[in-house]
């Protein structure tokens, strides 16, 4: 899995590519933790190029969203399709974290 971060007008966009599973989730956790600790107020996790997502990745997204909310910030997800979107939906994520179709939608939302 690849994790890359870029700053778009103050929103930290974290792009995950490949497979977000039990082996790779710690890498996303590290990235999100560093962003939160450095004071990021808006994080978008971009999943358009994510092929596979398991509960280990969902756990990181959920835990990071909780930390963001506790600090007055916000985490948003975008671009999920197919199996990745299905895993988010089965886990009840769209009811508590904004899940946007595109990055543009997420940037508006964020």
């Amino acid at each position, binding site marked *: 899995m690849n994790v890359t971060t870029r700053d778009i007008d103050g929103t930290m966009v974290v792009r995950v590519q490949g497979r977000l599973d*039990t*082996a790779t989730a710690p890498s996303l956790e590290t990235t999100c933790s560093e962003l939160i600790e450095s004071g990021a107020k808006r994080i978008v996790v971009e999943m358009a190029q994510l092929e596979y997502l398991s*509960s280990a990745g969902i*756990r990181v997204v959920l*835990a990071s969203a909780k930390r963001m*909310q506790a600090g007055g910030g916000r985490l948003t997800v975008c671009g999920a399709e197919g199996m990745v979107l*299905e895993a988010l939906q089965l*886990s*009840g994520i769209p*009811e508590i974290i904004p899940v946007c179709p595109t990055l543009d939608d997420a940037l508006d939302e964020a």
Partner: protein
Amino acid sequence: MTRTLLDREWSGGTAGDVPAIVEQVADVVAAAGMPAERVLRVELAVEEAAVNVCKHGYDNELGWLRVRVWRDNGEITVELSDRAAEFDPLSQDPPDLTSDLNHRAVGGMGIHLIRSVCDRVEYAREGHHNILSMVFEIAPSA
């Protein structure tokens, strides 16, 4: 007619070996003709089940695990057997999917995902083994 697609044992590994197990199952299931998007759901179920064995059975190690995959007409069965203490994952309470972000538990989703993506799932305790059988139709039913 039943045809075995994979029968392998792992022991002495760690939870880090789970992706390799998932990959082997995915390869044989794809070769059996399952569409790619459905194979990903099999991968999800196998990962969640194997991680669960490591967490609940072997204190985050892999311990001993046997993975068998077979095809029976239009169905694929993936069976995981372990020698850990008796643990029926299907007896666990379903996760709370209604509370708000603040109160939502971050874990406990694995079994729920397994139940959701499998067409059938069964648990049995046989001798000293926990046996989890997950059944998937190769093609979506009409």
